[in-house]
């Protein structure tokens, strides 16, 4: 059942309706997608946090992965958030040199 607002709330601008009377649409952000390479493991994580905290929370040692968002590298103090797609690419090689 749709709630109706009293005249005082509409007058104070507290209505969720737009001036034309339509209801605004809000997009619920998707959780962050984190891919671990070369394992190919995919994780879903919600909430804004610093890169350093994200890496530590996954039990990964600092300096052993590149943190990649799109075509940019992120430093430990950068923030990542919902809707981001992050790649954590291991830098340790045991084969190719």
């Amino acid at each position, binding site marked *: 059942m749709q709630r109706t607002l009293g005249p005082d709330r509409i007058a104070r601008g507290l209505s969720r309706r737009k001036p034309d009377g339509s209801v605004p649409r809000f997009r619920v952000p998707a959780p962050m997608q984190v891919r671990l390479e070369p394992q190919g493991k995919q994780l879903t994580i919600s909430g804004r946090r610093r890169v350093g905290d994200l890496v530590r929370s996954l039990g990964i040692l600092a300096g052993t992965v590149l943190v990649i968002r799109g075509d940019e*590298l992120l430093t430990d*103090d950068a923030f990542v958030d919902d809707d981001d797609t992050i790649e954590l690419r291991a830098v340790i090689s045991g084969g190719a040199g």
Partner: protein
Amino acid sequence: MKCKRCSATATVQLRSHNTAFCKPCFVFFFQRGVERAIARERMFSRDERILVAVSGGKDSLALWDTLVALGYETEGLYLGLGIGAYSSASEQKTRTFAERRGLRLQVVALDEAEAGLGIPSVAAATRRPACSACGTFKRHHFDRAALAGGFAVLATGHNLDDEAARLLGNVLHWQLPYLAKQRPVLEPTHPRFVRKVRPLYRTSELESATYAFLRGIDYVVEECPNSAGATQLIYKDVMNRLENEMPGSKLAFVTDFLSHGLPLFAKAPEIADLGECARCGMPAAGDVCGYCRLVAEVGRRRAQAVAHS
């Protein structure tokens, strides 16, 4: 975080150097570091031709890219190890790298050059660890290609993490002859050898991976399937834990060894005087070199298997 050189927003943080850089400044820092390592250890000069052993991984391709950027005359050598999809992807990425930059690349495929001598089949036939056979084959083919091509120098992409892991292993087992030889430049011990150098010996894996990414180098991210459980990876993990607690430990471990430790081991007994292999003519500690012994063993084991079946 700000770039230490230009104060722009930093892209790269290097805890081991207590610094951070933006993209252009990191590329400058990386290339200058390699150039300084080459000069410090007198690895080679600009009028010497350099054969760069490339595997399709971040280190060797970053090294090749840097040497070209610094103006050295180089040629690449890729050794196809015959390790299934891993080798196919490595070769493809190496060829693409060379073609896009107009660089000369030699490709030696073990499966084609020496019928059936891909690493997996050799390891299976001889029941040796794959890495042991791989090392023997690489050394032989790198030496042979450098000699045949008249190169003055053979450069490999071994990085600081490789050197620190190897040093840790040599110290744990007090491998005196190996400690005496652990240095970024190996002068030839035989007229058929060329000088072997490791220009990335002060460059961490993080730095070479970052450089490769920022330079748009498409490298093989997957590890060699034979490396799972390799001792070197255990040593690397130990060193990374130290580095995490005490940034700069790896660099200090290796560089302090070279300046203070290496002279102490320099008088360790030499492994052997080298003659020439009766079969292939390359340097050998006995009548036949390790490579030819291994190839003969493969042939013998296969003949036995056929006879039994």
